């Protein structure tokens, strides 16, 4: 649904723009974090891993700003209808992106642990970036949908979660098989399992964001919420 014309009180428009900008900024940082964390993992780049952890702090700071701004808008502008839904959605989305950032940081933290020994797990590791790419794309698209208040795009993102879950299932089986065949690598591959889990969770969060975007755009709740128990 298009945004239509501007508010009579121009400062209100600026506040909404600022809110969206902050969310976009957070989202951008989160996407980068996911990507960088995977690169660090593949290359064993501990420096990059540290940068990812620093980015997470930045994400947390922006989340605090979003919260402040949202409360201010509610108090001063008394938003109604779609403005109200957008502000509430922004608050919740910020919290979710903050968690996504935490997952990326978590992945980065495991980088030194996985490269205790080198070279041999490239095969297993190589599956993960593709999954991370998919999750990252979901995050990217859902935040675009939020900026554009595009309900259809949000629906599409939430539909992709099923594929991400399937991807996780296959990686899980692959990794377990590998562990069984290479018992020396169990502790490292266990970390990889957690990494895969984190990526799957990122996908779930992106789906949550999609539902919030849908509500902000249309005022209705997505009929089928993803309560799939297969993720566990």
């Amino acid at each position, binding site marked *: 649904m298009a945004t*239509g*014309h*501007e*508010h*009579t*009180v121009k400062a*209100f428009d600026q506040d909404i723009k600022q809110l969206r900008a902050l969310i976009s900024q957070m989202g951008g940082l989160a996407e980068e974090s996911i990507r960088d964390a995977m690169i660090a993992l593949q290359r064993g780049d501990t420096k990059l891993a540290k940068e990812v952890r620093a980015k997470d702090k930045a994400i947390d700071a922006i989340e605090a700003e979003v919260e402040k701004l949202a409360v201010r808008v509610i108090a001063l502008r*008394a*938003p*109604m*209808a*779609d*403005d*109200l*839904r957008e502000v509430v959605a922004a608050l919740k989305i910020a919290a979710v992106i903050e968690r996504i950032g935490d997952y990326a940081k978590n992945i980065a933290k495991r980088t030194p642990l996985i490269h205790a020994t080198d070279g041999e797990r490239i095969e297993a590791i190589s599956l993960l970036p593709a999954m991370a790419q998919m999750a990252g794309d979901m995050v990217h698209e859902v935040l675009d949908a939020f900026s554009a208040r595009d309900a259809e795009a949000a629906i599409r993102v939430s539909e992709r979660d099923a594929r991400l879950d399937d991807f996780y299932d296959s990686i899980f089986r692959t990794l377990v098989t590998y562990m069984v065949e290479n018992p020396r690598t169990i502790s490292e591959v266990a970390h990889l399992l957690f990494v895969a889990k984190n990526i799957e969770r990122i996908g779930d969060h992106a789906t949550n964001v999609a539902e919030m975007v849908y509500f902000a755009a*249309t*005022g*209705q709740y997505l009929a089928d919420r993803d309560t799939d128990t297969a993720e566990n």
Partner: protein
Amino acid sequence: MTQVDFAEAADVSAIPAQTEAAPKMSARGVNVFYGEKQAIRDVSIDVDMDNVTAFIGPSGCGKSTFLRTLNRMNDTVASARVEGEITLDGENIYDKSMDVVQLRARVGMVFQKPNPFPKSIYENVAYGPRIHGLARAKGDMDQIVERSLRRAGLWEEVKDRLNDSGTALSGGQQQRLCIARAIAVDPEVILMDEPCSALDPIATAKIEELIHELRGRYAIVIVTHNMQQAARVSQRTAFFHLGTLVEYGETDQIFTAPRQERTKDYITGRYG
């Protein structure tokens, strides 16, 4: 033309178990003309006993004009002409057999600027019952006055000075006196035309609380240009624009997810 959400109007799920009673007042296809100019276009709406109905809309959209058709106050304007059907308990109020004086006792009105009579507080409240012959003995009248002032939340403040002039009260008290005066004739419907616009926030809050207490005993329709007030006070909201009824539904639905673009633009402040 107009869109009216009757499906929403019939949904009384927010109100504790009442059978779906017929609406107290019903308007169908109402057009109002001032001379050649058309002020209200084809408006159809229901007002029921259990819910406070708010009319919102920008200036000049006809909400006050439409409100005044409900108790035939437009009759006082020579050039006004009303077409369509408006019923009270099923009877058409514009029918020739309907006595306007009786109608206005059943459908009371409170105005924007508090307008107590230049008489004592007691006389202000007693005037209506007196001309309608509602009190047989002196004791009856005292009772009616006390009951009305209590229901209007004014009794405690004025019980010791009932003979003081009504115009000596503060703005908020005067408006509550006007509400007591309207209540005294035992109406079935109370129409309020921007009752709080001349009052400060505390007086406004007292009146809003009063409306909440009166709900259910009287069918209340309130016109307000303050959307937050409409949101606080009503259960049903109707949005008027340029003389037409754009949207009518449950208050929380109108303010969180309005269906019409024009409604959305108005309540989010994108209008104009």
